[in-house]
């Protein structure tokens, strides 16, 4: 049974919340503001009771999948378990109730938290310093591109406008680069699924701004030529940007700073276990090498003899990139996670994430085509192309078949360089039993594709809705209730 809309359960006269009795003289806002500035009438929003609201959201929750409900092997999204202690700590009144413009001596705890987290993230990645102000991975990329630009402007190299992005990259990479005014040059992956140094050679001139890379890349493969790539880009006067979406594969193993990256972003909602929240709030800290530190957004959090301070005196800074200082509540969760895991735990997380991914990959390759058959890191990509040619069953049909078996689908049709791509990232927090259940489900789906494809074509069954009509949604967009 689908949940009704709030507008459909509204009844005039209902109210879900009572305010304290007004203890000062009341005033008529229409008189106070004047007819011209006052609202004619209150907005026409639903009138519902508290129990309506509570049930409404709990019913919606029952109609939604999450990591707490089942296996969520969505590639490049690192849907690991979200520890409950993180939530508890972030709700501490001392963190939750502080105002961003309070006197700085009254927010020492939060500033210390930010400073400590920045230090730890720098050590984990081999970078020098960073900002916590960017709110998400894509926001981090955008910030990173601003840093590139600012760096070149200061050097007087404004002709550096071309940015190399591999064809396997996340879509946000070229979008962020383009929005920041860079010309995007896409280089294809070679037969190994990697960026080959050879492919970069045509672009190594004084119009080169740099390269954006994910390592391991979106095929789950480590870019083994990274040192050579880094040398070539730097020799040509460019910079390297690291998309940290896949850091979960290499913590304690290999650091972007040591690989030669100049600017990186992390996704605390992926690697550092803060929840995804259905699409946010996330956090995308940006960390940089020494020579870019002066360009970081203001304010910086600095430690002085008299305590922590927000430092605004950064003449070379790119400025502010969000309203205040970032998604602070998310930072609290990430630091809690790092404290619990510690240096060994983080390394072990990457080891077991890679173990889980390789176990799945090996177990699936008898049934599904594996375009890059070699050791993977935290994720891998299989192709349903052959199945599609044989049976008409597509990557999406496989995904919907998984839904029916209580498993969240993988990332589909990405990366774009693999036809009918299915990208799996199990993460380290899943048990062997869960992985085996998943392997059985995938094999059963494979069998059905050949024996009873119609069962997959009409999947999923038993969900509150069947497959939805996306074409109608886009053709006649209805984005709010009547």
């Amino acid at each position, binding site marked *: 049974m689908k949940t009704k809309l709030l507008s459909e359960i509204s009844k005039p006269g209902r109210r879900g919340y009572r305010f304290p009795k007004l203890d000062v003289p009341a*005033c008529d806002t229409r008189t106070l503001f004047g007819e011209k500035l006052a609202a004619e009438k209150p907005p026409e929003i639903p009138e519902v009771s508290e129990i309506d609201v509570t049930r409404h959201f709990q019913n919606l929750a029952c109609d939604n999948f999450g990591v707490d409900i089942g296996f969520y092997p969505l590639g490049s999204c690192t849907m690991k*378990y979200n520890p409950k202690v993180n939530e508890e700590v972030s709700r501490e009144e001392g963190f939750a109730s502080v105002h961003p413009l309070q006197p700085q001596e009254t927010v020492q705890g939060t500033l210390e938290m930010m400073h400590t987290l920045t230090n730890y993230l720098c050590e984990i990645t081999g970078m020098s310093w960073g900002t916590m102000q960017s709110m998400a991975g894509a926001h981090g990329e955008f910030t990173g591109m601003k840093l590139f630009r600012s760096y070149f402007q200061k050097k007087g190299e404004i002709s550096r406008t071309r940015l190399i992005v591999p064809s396997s990259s996340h879509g946000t990479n070229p979008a962020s680069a383009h929005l920041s005014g860079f010309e995007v040059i896409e280089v294809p992956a070679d037969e190994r699924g990697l960026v080959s140094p050879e492919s970069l050679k045509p672009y190594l001139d004084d119009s080169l701004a740099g390269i954006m890379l994910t390592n391991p890349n979106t095929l789950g493969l480590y870019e083994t030529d*990274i040192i050579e790539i880094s040398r070539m880009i730097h020799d040509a006067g460019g910079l390297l940007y690291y998309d940290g979406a896949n850091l979960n594969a290499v913590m304690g193993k290999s650091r972007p700073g040591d690989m030669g990256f100049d600017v990186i972003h992390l996704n605390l909602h992926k690697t550092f276990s803060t929840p995804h929240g259905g699409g946010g709030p996330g956090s995308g800290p940006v960390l940089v090498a020494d020579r870019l530190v002066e360009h970081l957004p203001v304010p910086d959090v600095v430690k002085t003899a008299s305590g922590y301070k927000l430092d605004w005196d950064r003449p070379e800074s790119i400025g502010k990139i969000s309203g205040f200082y970032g998604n602070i509540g998310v930072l609290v969760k990430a630091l809690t996670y790092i404290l619990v895991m510690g240096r060994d735990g983080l390394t072990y997380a990457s080891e077991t994430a890679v173990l889980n991914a390789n176990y799945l990959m090996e177990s699936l390759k008898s049934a599904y085509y594996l375009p890059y058959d070699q*050791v993977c890191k935290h994720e891998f990509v299989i192709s349903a192309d052959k199945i599609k040619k044989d049976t008409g069953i597509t990557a999406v049909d496989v995904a919907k078949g998984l839904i029916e078996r209580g498993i969240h689908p993988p990332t589909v049709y990405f990366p774009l360089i693999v036809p009918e791509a299915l990208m799996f990232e199990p993460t380290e927090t899943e048990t062997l039993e869960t992985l085996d259940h998943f392997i059985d489900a995938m094999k059963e789906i494979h069998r059905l594709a050949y024996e009873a494809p119609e069962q997959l074509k009409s999947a999923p069954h038993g969900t509150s809705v*069947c497959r939805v009509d996306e074409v109608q949604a886009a053709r006649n967009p209805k984005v709010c209730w009547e």
Partner: protein
Amino acid sequence: MLPSWKRMSIKNIQKDTDMSRQFSYIPHTEDDIRTMLKAIGVSSIDELFSDIPSSVTLQRPLDIPEGISEHEAAKFMKGLAERNILGTSFLGCGIYDHIVPPAVNQVLSTPAFVTAYTPYQAEISQGLLQGIFEFQSLVCKLTGMDVSNASLYDGATAAAEAAAISLQARRKADTILVSEAVHPFTRSVLRSYYQDSGVKVETIPVKNGATTLEGMKEKLDENTACVILQTPNIFGILEDFSGFADAVHEKKALAVISSNPMSLGVCRNQGSWGADIAIGDTQPFGLPASFGGPTVGYIGASGKLLRKMPGRIVGETQDTEGKRAFVLTLQAREQHIKRERATSNICSNQALAALASTAYLAMAGPYGLKEAGEQCAAKARYLYHLLQDIPGINVFSDKPFFNEFTLDFTSGKKAEAFIQGMNRQGIFAGVHLGALDDAFDGLTAVAVTEKRTREEMDRYAACAREVLS
């Protein structure tokens, strides 16, 4: 490298000497690991990392503390939280201390929302999709606009995205006009986003605390992509935008108006002023101050701008059986399909926080929102009158205001001294606007919400008298 005090402070809690890898979030037994390695055909986990060249393999442990139990980590973190000092808050400037109904907090803690990803797979994400659809609907109703999206990072970046829409809609225009009375941080974000890419971000000067039609017209021309305004503005003043939208449209530019959504139960909304794009931040609706984030940027727009909207949009449609269903729609605009030709790079939103604001609005309803607005206005008025009589305090303007007004201490030094003096009494008396923009030196914004009591305001006045005497 890490300062030694930091390593010490955490290590001292308890050193984990047991190296048996008891990491509660990682469920592998030794047997499991053996089974898996065997299936893969390797003899050790290290072999799985043999593709990493030795020159970029970290040859030492990370220099961060060893792991500790959740209990100890929580205790350490709570210790940090306790180092923050709370007070009776009269701070605003974008973040307000309103009452949060407990039922709203429950939404923020619901596991199926907390631990979900962006709802790509509609069949198992109807809950989130519908919740976001309702958020979009409420934004439309509140602002008087036709369409909305799944939310943006915050109010300041919403302004930057509104500018992006305008620059797309007006391809030949290269100037963003922004009123000086718009939050200084929003203006900084606009500059950071655009000034390095050939777009001019110009300021419309303020007169007596408000933007004037003449002032705007002087700056407006064919190169203007949009004009960004704010009401209540940074001084708390309710701006009169009569004639603004017409003047903006005459130059084919877009009118963007930012509003504290809490004001919209009692104040005119953006749609009624003729705005093309309405923006703001829903933090006042059920979200904690949290040192400024996470909050939720909202954006509403006229229908013709729908396909230029950034970020996620949820649409209503049907499933194969004709049942109502919700789905992420108009994805052809987005980065994962269009790549560098996308209208925006935004991949996420503030979904969970947006759901909390949705729950808040549902709890309040039209009359709750009106009452909250009336209470804010009445209480702000009450304090304003109390303060007017205190020697040493001058109010900046006598223009109508919603829940925030500005005091003029004539110098930043005096303003800071006042704030510090009040701070010693456990009162956060206001925000020195001069700290946000040099041009506002000495001006101090004081915000009052329905959460403040008469007693607290009487105490504010008494302390102010003392501090200024």
